[in-house]
């Protein structure tokens, strides 16, 4: 190789060569860069084309999805509207049908309609959850209230299958929380309904435990344990997936859309929780879910603790689980709880406690126990223990409540609690039993086990003046029928326009308003009504087949006070109307619409057949009961009337309440109705003493009833 730069000319030549080489490199690099730039430009163009195509496709997909949602909502509306008619008309016709076969058919139609409605709701719910369209409420809720709601809706079925049901809430679970009551109940209800569905005998336990707690929220674990057929482990995971049931024959045997648990899973996840299940084939299953709830800032308004402080309670039940559950429900309260496994053991306990100078204050007696049942046990205790230290008796029954009330009243037991026992029903009853006073909130404890029907609301609804607005005549007829059965006076309007005119003329306590109507829809009509002087506070309840929450919110924002979904469940209708017309009283003199309580004088004084119905056809028992009634009321009328003049209306109301119950047992229906009327009048807000005319009527009916009963007793005695 040559070394560099010996000869300057050679050196210059070398440098020129290198320069020429570098120029060629530069030129080639430029060419390559230009090609690459052009290439890049083309690719960017292509990417832009693809981006536009994608964004168009995305918009199209979104439009399609919205159209699907809208279609679904509309279809649901379209399906619900005729379903409303089917379910409502079946219910009404069923109530009036005489022929038991026709009643059965109608009841089947009613039930199938409700089932179909459930399916429609499930499908809609699932699609909304999948589209993330469900909005959760965050309002004050009481866990006991949730359990009570679930218990109300499932108790009848559990009882009819002879299943024990127990609800328990761990003491450390805060009672006042915030969350979505409806969704929480929905999940729990689904679990409990499944448990009942798949359990032939045994018991179903619902537990609420505290999983974790931080500064402003709690994670609660709800679990439902049954003693049913169980699920094989390999199937457990599939249960929470949509459209999968263990096998398709389940659908035929047990019904259901197969969507319930999938909905539960998504709802639990939306509530910040999870779902799961454990099971053993043939032994039973536990289904659980967790949910995060916010702590409520509101403190409980009522503390039963003081009322119960230091009380001694004896829990008597032959079922060990029931004993544990009831004791557990009482554990947060400052009471001493002992248990007994049979009537005889209970009697021994009570006598021993009495002799030891530490008598029991309350006896919680299961009705149906082997050998000595609840009522017999109560009798035996009364025989053996002096009245002064005799405990108050609460009868717990898993069987028909009416039947139990009859039997209990005869034995002098006033308070009957239906299983499943919830904390609130138990504590309310206990407080009532030990203090002789009602719940401080002023509302008698609601019986959770009874499915609410028209009879529960006639007191609250009688005489309410309701304007029903709907453009579909059949809907008007259904609502009119349902409301009239409950004692409301009903007028109808078939358009928003007419509704506004009617309301302006006055005379209504509440308006039930359909939303979708031609010309003037329900929302506009409501706004018009609320603008009318004097009608600003007239409650307007929307009745709509529209189930989307955002629409309900829109209705409320427009001034509508409440929303009912079609098909309207009668108990929901009654409860809602009652809630919005609390203590509406009218002055009979100025109110032409209100009926002048005509029913009272029409009812028979003494309906023997009716009484025998209550007393299992036992004529001898009827005579004995009548004697008791005469004995206890002979000297009671004057003091009651005296209470009224002394303006002790609450005590008087309780007297009438008791009289209503005992006269009903004897079929003294005129007295029952009059007592109910008086009780209602006395309990109304701003209650006044009844008019002199009413009191004269009462004295007269009371006297006539006593006379008729005496005659009956004498006739039997000879």
């Amino acid at each position, binding site marked *: *190789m*040559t*070394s*560099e730069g010996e000869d300057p000319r050679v050196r210059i030549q*070398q440098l020129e*060569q*290198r320069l020429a*080489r570098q120029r*060629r*490199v530069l030129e*080639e*690099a430029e060419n*390559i*860069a230009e090609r*690459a730039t052009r290439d890049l430009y083309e690719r960017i163009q292509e990417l832009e084309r693809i981006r536009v195509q994608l964004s168009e496709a995305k918009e199209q997909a979104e439009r399609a999805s919205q159209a699907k949602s809208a279609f679904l909502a509309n279809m649901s509306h379209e399906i619900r509207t005729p379903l409303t008619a089917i379910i409502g008309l079946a219910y009404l016709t069923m109530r009036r049908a005489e022929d038991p076969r026709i009643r059965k058919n109608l009841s089947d139609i009613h039930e199938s309609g409700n089932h179909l409605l459930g399916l429609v709701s499930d499908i809609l719910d699932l699609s909304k959850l999948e589209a993330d369209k469900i909005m959760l409420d965050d309002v004050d809720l009481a866990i006991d209230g949730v359990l009570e709601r679930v218990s109300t809706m499932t108790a009848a079925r559990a009882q009819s299958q002879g299943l024990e049901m127990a609800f328990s809430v761990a003491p450390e679970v805060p009672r006042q929380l915030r969350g979505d009551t409806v969704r929480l109940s929905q999940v729990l209800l689904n679990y409990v309904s499944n448990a009942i569905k798949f359990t032939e005998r045994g018991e179903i336990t619902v537990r609420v435990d505290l999983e974790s707690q931080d500064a402003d929220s709690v994670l609660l674990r709800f679990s439902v344990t049954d003693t049913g057929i169980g699920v094989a482990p390999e199937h457990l995971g599939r249960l929470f997936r949509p459209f999968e049931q263990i096998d398709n024959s389940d659908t035929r045997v047990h019904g259901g859309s197969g969507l319930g648990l999938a909905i539960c899973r998504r709802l639990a996840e939306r509530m910040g929780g999870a779902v799961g299940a454990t099971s053993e084939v043939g032994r039973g299953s536990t289904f659980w879910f967790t949910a995060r709830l916010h702590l409520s800032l509101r403190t409980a308004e009522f503390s039963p603790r003081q009322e119960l402080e230091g009380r001694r309670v004896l829990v008597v039940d032959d079922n060990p689980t029931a004993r544990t559950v009831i004791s557990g429900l009482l554990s947060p309260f400052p009471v001493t709880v002992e248990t007994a496994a049979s009537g005889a053991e209970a009697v021994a306990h009570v006598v021993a406690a009495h002799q030891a100078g530490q008598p029991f204050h309350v006896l919680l007696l299961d009705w149906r126990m082997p050998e000595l049942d609840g009522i017999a046990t109560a009798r035996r205790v009364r025989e053996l223990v002096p009245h002064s230290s005799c405990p108050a008796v609460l009868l717990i029954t898993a069987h028909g409540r009416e039947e139990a009330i009859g039997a209990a009243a005869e034995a002098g037991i006033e308070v009957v609690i239906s299983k499943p026992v919830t904390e609130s029903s138990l504590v309310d009853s206990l407080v009532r039993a030990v203090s002789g006073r009602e719940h401080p909130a002023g509302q008698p404890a609601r019986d959770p086990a009874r499915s609410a029907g028209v009879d529960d609301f006639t007191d609250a609804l009688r005489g309410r003046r309701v304007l029903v607005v709907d453009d579909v005549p059949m809907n008007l007829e259904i609502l009119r029928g349902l409301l009239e059965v409950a004692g409301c006076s009903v007028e109808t309007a078939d358009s928003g326009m007419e509704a506004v005119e009617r309301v302006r003329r006055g005379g209504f306590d509440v308006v039930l308003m359909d939303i979708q109507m031609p010309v003037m829809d329900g929302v506009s009509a409501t706004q018009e009504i609320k603008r009318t002087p004097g009608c600003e506070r007239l409650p307007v309840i929307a009745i709509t087949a529209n189930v989307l929450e955002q629409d309900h919110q829109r209705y409320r924002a427009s001034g509508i006070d409440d929303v009912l979904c079609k098909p309207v469940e009668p108990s929901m209708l009654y409860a809602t109307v009652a809630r919005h017309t609390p203590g509406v009283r009218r002055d009979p003199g100025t109110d032409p619409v209100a009926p002048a309580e005509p029913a009272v004088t029409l009812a028979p004084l003494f309906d023997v057949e009716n009484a025998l119905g209550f007393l299992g056809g036992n004529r001898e028992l009827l005579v004995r009961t009548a004697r008791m009634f005469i004995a206890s009321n002979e000297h009671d009328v004057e003091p009651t009337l005296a209470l009224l003049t002394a303006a002790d209306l609450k005590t008087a109301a309780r007297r009438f309440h008791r009289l209503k119950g005992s006269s009903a047992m004897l079929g003294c229906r005129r007295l029952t109705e009059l007592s109910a009327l008086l009780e209602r009048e006395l309990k109304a807000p701003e209650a006044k003493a009844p008019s002199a005319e009413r009191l004269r009527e009462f004295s007269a009916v009371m006297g006539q009833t006593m006379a008729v009963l005496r005659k009956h007793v004498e006739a039997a005695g000879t």
Partner: protein
Amino acid sequence: MKGIIFILLEKVVIEAHGEGVWDALLEKSGASGTYTSLGSYPDEELLGLVAAASEATGRPQGEILTWFGRKAMPLLRERYPDFFTRHQQTIPFILTLNEIIHPEVRKLYPGAEAPDFGFRRSGPNELELEYRSKKKMCALAEGLIHGAADVFGEKAVIEQPRCMHRGDESCLMVCRFESAAS
């Protein structure tokens, strides 16, 4: 052959022996010398340059290629540090060739004919590497392996029981690595 190889060779030669030597090699081999990293140039030009160097130094061509590979690896680390910084040792680095480095090379330099290697871990510090390529540049590969070991502070001992230049179907390189300090 991609331009980057020629550029690396140019750098390595100039760094070690000066620009005059590079000029002479170009002149002798008749290669154009106008290389850009994005262009592709005939394999023969590279072989011609190596042959010229071999002739000038009196050393075998394989040795020249190995020397080039070893010197090129530190330059590659400067240019593409990301491929190196993830590793502390040579073997894990080499094992990313097929899955990471060469696919990236093909993205950066469309048309690059980066070879795929067969790997076998024959011991904790030993790697068998099978090379199969029309270019038959096992000597370059060997140099690159040495260079990689240098980068990671290791020393590579490479035996080649099979070689395409000896009529085998593929080349097999048995590489043992030890810490350079020991």
